[in-house]
């Protein structure tokens, strides 16, 4: 009633229960913040958008995998992905991602587990604060190191739930905080490369930065370093793809050896944070939370919508704050960017598959490693570039020109790889650094 509404205007949130560093259960936090909690629970919703969101496909649960619903399989949808990832776990199972509520189950039951995964996987798929402390006797970093090197299934024993309040918030003050050592180390290395020494994200980041950093703890490209399987973000030279590739070249890392060609290749994963950084919104100070957790009116208060989802399912709150345009027009603009990105992605994928096919044939025909070296390097590069744009889940929206130019370069490298196979001593042209 209007009477009620006027009351709300006066009162701040009421503390029903005391929340401490020991309170892992979101339901407890929810007693103080029912609105955020209810929204948080809604991340189970599955709604499809043209390129994003997710749909719930029914599946018959099994002993091994009790899930009754999964998101669509991207590798069945586009088998070229299986060729690109031949010999790697992703060629077994790779699906459209869905809401936060599913993160722990989807990780536990993905067929990618068949090949055996490290505990390091857990960092981004579960509520970790209590786990880190337990395994590190109060020391988060030591807990982090402990979980990284465990076999996944052993680590799994310690995991209770998907990301929760405590992973993003400081109890009491409710301030945002960074809880992932991998991010602390990654951003610290990045800042150092920008001439900022001794950067402590929880001490030095602004609130607006935090509204993206909390997401950047997981929505980033990563690899597992050394035998400790330390979760690492390859940012010490910068966030741009050239810098990240340069980093991998320098440390001489490969994710796996391509089954059909023998090339030492890389897999890029969900670089939303990196790509967003290259886009106009980041440049304009628009944070992940501004679009994926927009403010919702709750009486006199504005609360952040904790139903983290595709903004296209929430255009009024997510976009119309800043863009005074009809919803259909906003969606049309996004889809134009996405269809152009997707079209280029398909073209680049074709070129890569051409290269892989030819490499395979040459290898079977007994070509020496030396003869394949240049083509391998081109496959490695093209593949990483394509994957970087492909794995970036906004289908180009976060940085339209950047996604497109990355795919354009990938085309060049894949085709040059084919040339290298036809011409001994061929020297490829690599684009100069962007800066």
């Amino acid at each position: 009633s209007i009477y009620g509404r006027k009351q709300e205007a006066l009162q701040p949130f009421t503390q029903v229960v005391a929340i401490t560093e020991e309170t892992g259960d979101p339901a407890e936090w929810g007693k103080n913040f029912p609105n955020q909690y209810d929204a948080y629970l809604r991340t189970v919703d599955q709604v499809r958008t043209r390129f994003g969101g997710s749909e719930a496909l029914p599946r018959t649960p099994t002993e091994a995998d009790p899930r009754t619903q999964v998101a669509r399989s991207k590798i069945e949808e586009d088998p070229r992905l299986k060729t690109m990832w031949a010999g790697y776990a992703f060629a077994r199972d790779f699906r459209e991602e869905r809401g936060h509520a599913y993160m722990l189950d989807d990780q536990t039951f993905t067929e990618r587990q068949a090949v055996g995964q490290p505990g390091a996987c857990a960092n981004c798929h579960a509520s970790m604060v209590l786990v880190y402390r337990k395994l590190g006797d109060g020391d988060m970093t030591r807990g982090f190191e402990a979980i990284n090197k465990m076999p996944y299934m052993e680590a799994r024993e310690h995991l209770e739930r998907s990301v929760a309040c405590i992973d993003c918030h400081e109890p009491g003050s409710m301030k945002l905080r960074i809880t992932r050592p991998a991010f602390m180390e990654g951003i610290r290395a990045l800042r150092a490369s920008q001439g900022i020494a001794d950067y402590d994200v929880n001490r030095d980041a602004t609130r607006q930065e935090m509204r993206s950093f909390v997401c950047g703890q997981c929505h980033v490209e990563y690899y597992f370093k050394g035998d400790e399987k330390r979760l690492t973000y390859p940012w010490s030279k910068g966030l741009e793809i050239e810098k990240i590739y340069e980093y991998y070249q320098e440390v001489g890392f490969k994710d796996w050896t391509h089954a059909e060609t023998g090339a030492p290749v890389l897999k890029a994963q969900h670089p939303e944070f990196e790509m967003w950084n290259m886009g106009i919104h980041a440049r304009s100070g628009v944070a992940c939370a501004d679009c994926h957790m927009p403010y919702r009116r709750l009486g006199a208060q504005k609360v952040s919508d904790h139903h983290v989802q595709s903004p296209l399912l929430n255009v009024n709150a997510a976009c119309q704050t800043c863009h005074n345009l009809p919803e259909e027009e906003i969606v049309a603009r996004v889809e134009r960017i996405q269809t152009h990105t997707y079209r280029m992605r398909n073209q680049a994928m074709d070129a890569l598959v051409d290269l892989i096919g030819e490499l395979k044939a040459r290898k079977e025909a007994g070509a020496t490693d030396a003869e394949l070296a240049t083509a391998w390097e081109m496959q490695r590069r093209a593949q990483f570039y394509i994957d970087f744009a492909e794995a970036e889940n906004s289908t180009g929206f976060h940085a339209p020109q950047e996604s497109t130019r990355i795919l354009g370069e990938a085309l060049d490298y894949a085709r040059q790889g084919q040339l290298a196979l036809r011409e001994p001593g061929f020297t490829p042209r690599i684009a100069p650094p962007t800066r």
Partner: protein
Amino acid sequence: MPPARIIGTFLALALGTAIGIGGFTFIYGRGASYLTNDPAACVNCHVMNPQYSGWLQSSHRSVAVCNDCHAPHDLIGKYWTKARNGWNHSSAFTTNRFPDQLRIPPVNRAVTEAACRYCHAELVAAVDGPMGDEPRECLTCHSDVGHRGLAPLFLAGAPGASHNGALDHE
């Protein structure tokens, strides 16, 4: 109150009360606030807070109040619009049926467009074209003159709201 405003108030109130229960809504819901020129009246509804603070930061803060831009500058039109909006908005407020991001609808956008010209007519002949026949929306280029920093809305009453406006990098 100048007689004009008394007539207007009467017109509007008549309309409001004419609709039974609506009368309660209109008056208790402060729909009547629409009938004054005092911006403070608008913030009788917290819903208007963002626009109010946006206005305080705008270039027009000292030269135009809400009604200068959101009410027609002719007497009848002014009070008719005020009554209509007063009614629409207070009922919307009561029933809580309105979007998270308020959007000025074409009808009221037109009122505002006219308001710009009311004050700037002299200056903007060119904008309406050499013939003055095909006017161009002022808001294409000046949508922020009445409200600065509208987006995204601040975190009212929540932790952290005190420092750092959302688009602020420090």
